[in-house]
């Protein structure tokens, strides 16, 4: 199993980017009990049989790494949701895209910690490929925000330089911080 929930999240977002998706929408909601995530892309999609095989750790379609025998991203997530009492739903249509929704109980002592969400989002926004990514986030305190890659690129210029990434990190940290009643 991955070390933190953010690692699962990163894995699926990266799958979306690598599937050639032009648009990826991520919705993250958190309350005292549940962490819920939905990652929807318009990449190449999967058939019902491909979905089933994607959950098998000893299967990979071989396009990403020719000759390799394992594909662990989704099986890790399935293992986590199964063993922790969460849920995992995969909706996909060949040629249209894939939506992956998962939920993990934050009050289960075996649920991994959320991890570094800001760092994960900085990563998700700064892959080299051309894609649009929107992240809508509802924090446990009820506060919410939405960030898109195109508006970040417009404000920061190149997203791949160390300078931009440091500013992006500051920006997301300020959104993620608890601002108390004034912002409620």
């Amino acid at each position, binding site marked *: 199993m*991955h*070390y933190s929930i953010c*690692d699962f999240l*990163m*894995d699926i977002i*990266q799958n979306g980017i*690598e599937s050639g998706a032009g648009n990826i929408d991520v919705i993250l909601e958190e309350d005292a009990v549940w962490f819920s995530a939905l990652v929807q892309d318009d990449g190449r999609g999967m058939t019902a049989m491909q979905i089933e095989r994607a959950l098998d750790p000893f299967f990979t379609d071989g396009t*990403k*790494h020719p000759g390799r025998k394992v594909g*662990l*991203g989704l099986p*890790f997530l399935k293992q986590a949701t199964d063993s922790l009492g969460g849920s995992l739903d995969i909706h996909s249509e060949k040629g249209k895209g894939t939506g992956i929704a998962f939920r993990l109980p934050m009050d289960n002592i075996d649920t991994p910690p959320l991890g*570094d969400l800001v*760092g*994960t989002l900085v*990563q998700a926004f*700064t*892959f*080299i490929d051309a894609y649009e990514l929107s992240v809508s986030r509802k924090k446990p305190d009820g506060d919410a925000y939405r960030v898109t890659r195109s*508006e*970040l690129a417009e*404000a*920061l*210029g*190149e997203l*791949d*330089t*160390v*300078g*931009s*990434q*440091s*500013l992006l*990190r*500051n*920006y997301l*940290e*300020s*959104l993620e*911080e608890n*601002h108390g009643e004034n*912002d409620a």
Partner: protein
Amino acid sequence: MAKMTLDDLRKLRGTKKTAMEMRDTGNKTIQVIIGMGTSGIAAGAKATLQAFGDELLAQGLTEVSLRQAGSLGLDYAEPTVEVHVPGMPDTVYGKVDAAVAKLIVQKHIIGRELVSGHVYDKPAKDIVK
């Protein structure tokens, strides 16, 4: 820290940019690529990425391009990092934790010297100590 807006971000970028332009901009062609496949992440590539960002920033190398790729194919040596510096051989480093990341910035990128013990691909073995 108060909640920032996109406008704040634009202004900050403006001020940082001017400060940056006063320094040497030759580091714009330097690229660091981190392998961020499942095995890379499991081996701690996130900490490596963070360490590169922190150290490059601390050294004032804000124009260096810091990128992520999927697996670089050397899963036994994760986290793996590819470094392109003009005038140096393109190099893939393996087993790069935060401490090694710092070393790569200081020795390879600033000192123009390969970091022994972590070179996993290119240049040929006889070039590396």
